[in-house]
């Protein structure tokens, strides 16, 4: 109740001070972050899995949806591009099959050493297959058609595909790391996020790289056709509906035997395993579902922004901010995640002008009182103040209020 009241108060203040057009934009973005935060809450709050690769999943989801929905590029389809792309995908599939078969070679009588050798050979062969395939294709596509363009699918299909791709990626990471302690998952996810970003930035044939792609199609009236405010309000309604539907589904899952099992695994792995639960399998399941939600949220966010810029995905905004939202809002509580996302996003956006203002004041008074010459890059330093505050918030919340603002509710039946 109090949380809802705070949110409404914040909304009123924002709308009054920033004007409706800008405020609607802020709340749509905050809503997209709420979807992402719900996904992360599923992983961390329900299952205790530490995912620091949120940015990578958002980027992967956004890229997938961008490619699926952007109008197709006739230059590409009329050149030799599609054939080359098909050939490359075939090579990729073959490479994956090679590794999978090498891994299964112990079933056809390979000893441990022979299997290790087979795997090494398979990895090397797969590597050569893929890298040798990508360069000629990329060169051909980039000279003839700049990039492959999109597939012109409806936006909702793009969003679902985004979820599927994010799920596949996280399935791979989880398969590798979930048998081990959570720290390994953290290391692997942070690395994978960087690699996804590097790939999207450099694969010009697929994403136009630094040239960026815009405008992305909207699922509702386009700002160009309708009025800005109307278009954004419709998008806001859409996001709100998505949040409500997903929230209800997640609440059902939380209260179901499945949710209870997840919390049991989170709180005492050994006990859950002793009760016959397949801990790693369940964790894999929830990690993939959470990542799908994150990828989906990322796609919704990027379509609203309208510009796909691979350099725009940064750890601070797309990973750590989401973490602050979840742990401050209350891990294990979906309302907490939504509340945290909306509140923190508004504070985060408003803090940029506030920090600049503060630093400008600092410079002026410093000059007047202490005759202090401020460094010329003061504005970029003002941004760093916010990085510091995010870090401080994480450590303070963990220490002082580990349950967050809206703690997880535990039902006790008598």
């Amino acid at each position, binding site marked *: 109740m109090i949380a809802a009241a705070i949110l409404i108060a914040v909304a009123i203040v924002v709308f009054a001070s920033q004007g409706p057009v800008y405020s609607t934009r802020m709340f749509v973005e905050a809503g997209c972050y709420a979807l992402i935060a719900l996904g992360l809450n599923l992983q961390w709050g329900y299952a*205790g899995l*530490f995912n*620091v690769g949120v940015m990578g999943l958002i980027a992967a989801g956004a890229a997938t949806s961008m490619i699926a929905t952007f109008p197709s590029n006739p230059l590409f389809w009329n050149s030799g591009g599609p054939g080359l792309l098909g050939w490359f995908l075939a090579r990729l599939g073959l490479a994956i099959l090679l590794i999978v078969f090498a891994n299964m070679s112990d079933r056809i009588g390979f000893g441990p050493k022979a299997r*290790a050798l087979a*795997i090494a050979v398979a*990895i090397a062969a797969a*590597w050569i297959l893929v*890298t040798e395939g990508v360069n000629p294709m990329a060169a051909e596509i980039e000279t003839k058609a700049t990039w492959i363009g999109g597939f012109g699918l409806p936006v909702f299909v793009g969003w679902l595909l985004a979820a599927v791709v994010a799920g596949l990626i996280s399935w791979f990471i989880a398969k*590798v*790391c979930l*048998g*081990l*302690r*959570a*720290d*390994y998952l*953290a*290391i*692997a996810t*942070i*690395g*994978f996020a*960087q*690699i996804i970003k*590097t*790939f999207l*930035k*450099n694969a010009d044939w697929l994403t136009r790289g630094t040239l960026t792609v815009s405008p992305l199609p909207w699922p509702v009236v386009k700002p160009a056709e309708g009025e800005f405010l109307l278009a954004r309000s419709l998008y806001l309604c859409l996001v709100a509906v998505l949040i409500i539907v997903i929230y209800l589904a997640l609440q059902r899952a939380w209260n179901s035997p499945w949710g209870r099992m997840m919390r049991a695994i989170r709180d005492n792995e050994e006990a859950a395993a002793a009760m016959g639960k397949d801990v790693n399998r369940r964790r894999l399941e929830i990690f993939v579902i959470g990542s799908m939600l994150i990828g989906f949220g990322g796609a919704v966010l990027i379509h609203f922004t309208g510009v796909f810029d691979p350099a725009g995905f940064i750890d*601070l905004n797309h990973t*750590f901010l989401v*973490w602050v939202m979840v*742990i401050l809002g209350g891990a294990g509580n979906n309302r907490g995640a939504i509340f945290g996302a909306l509140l923190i996003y508004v504070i985060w956006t408003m803090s940029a002008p506030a920090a600049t203002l503060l630093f400008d004041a600092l410079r002026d008074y410093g000059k007047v009182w202490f005759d202090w010459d401020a*460094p010329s*890059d003061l504005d*970029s*330093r003002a941004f*760093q*103040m*916010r*990085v*510091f*505050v*995010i*870090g*401080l*918030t*994480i*450590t303070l919340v*963990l*220490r002082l209020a*580990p349950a967050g603002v809206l703690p997880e509710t535990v039902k006790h039946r008598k």
Partner: protein
Amino acid sequence: MEALVFLINKALVAGLVIGSIYALGAIGVTLIFGILRFAHFAHGDLMTLGAFFTLALAGIGASLGIATPFPIALAALLPAMLLTAASAIAIDRTFYRPLRLAKVRPIIIVIASVGVTLMLQGAIRLVAGVGTRNMFFDQAKDIHRFTLPGARREIVMTEPQVVLVALTICAMVGLHWFLTRSRLGKAMRAVSDNPDLARITGIDTDRVVRATWVTAGALACAAGSLLSMDVFLKPDLAFNLLLPIFAAAIVGGIGQPFGAIAGGFLIGFSETLAIFDWGVLFRELNPLLPALLQLPTSFAFVPTEYKLMVPFVILIIVLVYRPTGVFRGKVF
């Protein structure tokens, strides 16, 4: 011959240098992981912090007019290492120790270390700005040249590189002596093996924790400072180091300092050899080969922009097939 010199310069010397950096960082990560049982994400920023301490001390020294026979930044290294070690203990006291005492799940401390990463990053850039700095101010770096018989080009190593490699060797020997001969080092290994057993045999775990942070902090400072002397000091120096360092620690086996050193060099050499343009060698070989077996004139295993793939792929392979690492470390 020229190509061989090129290979040595670009791949072997570079691999040795970056491998030393990874090794020095990974020793700290593996000690912290083994003794305090969490992945210390702020380690990269501890390196940056150390580098900035060195820069600040060198700047103060230079402005006081202290003259040293070698670059002043090298003279500032030792006090900066002490300062970083002290900061590491202070960070532990303020952020990790309260959580440890509250007996939270280890992963919570990992998240706290992510928070510390952001705080250090923010604080460093807030104070020092985001620009690039030269650790040597306007002085030129000494360059050591070696000539191979029959080659016109020379093998080049700069002074910081030589110091770095020498320091890594010293650190290895010193660490070996410390961990196997001294009382405190043995206590550290005992805590790493079994903390409860160590405590009931009367080992002062607080002292062990302090020693861990001192070692980790000092080595991180050395690595960060020498890396930024070798190239430039950038505030985002740390970020790209984090993954290779973790990979090195895991490849070497968690809790195994010597494994971490081996892992560091393995990752370092793999990286430089993977991005090395083998075409340079192939061009010289091509005249000797029949026309059918001509090698490409430009060939690298991994394009430079995907350098990060190398430690990541090694990490994944190790996690899948041998999670204990090459030297049979712990796996939690």
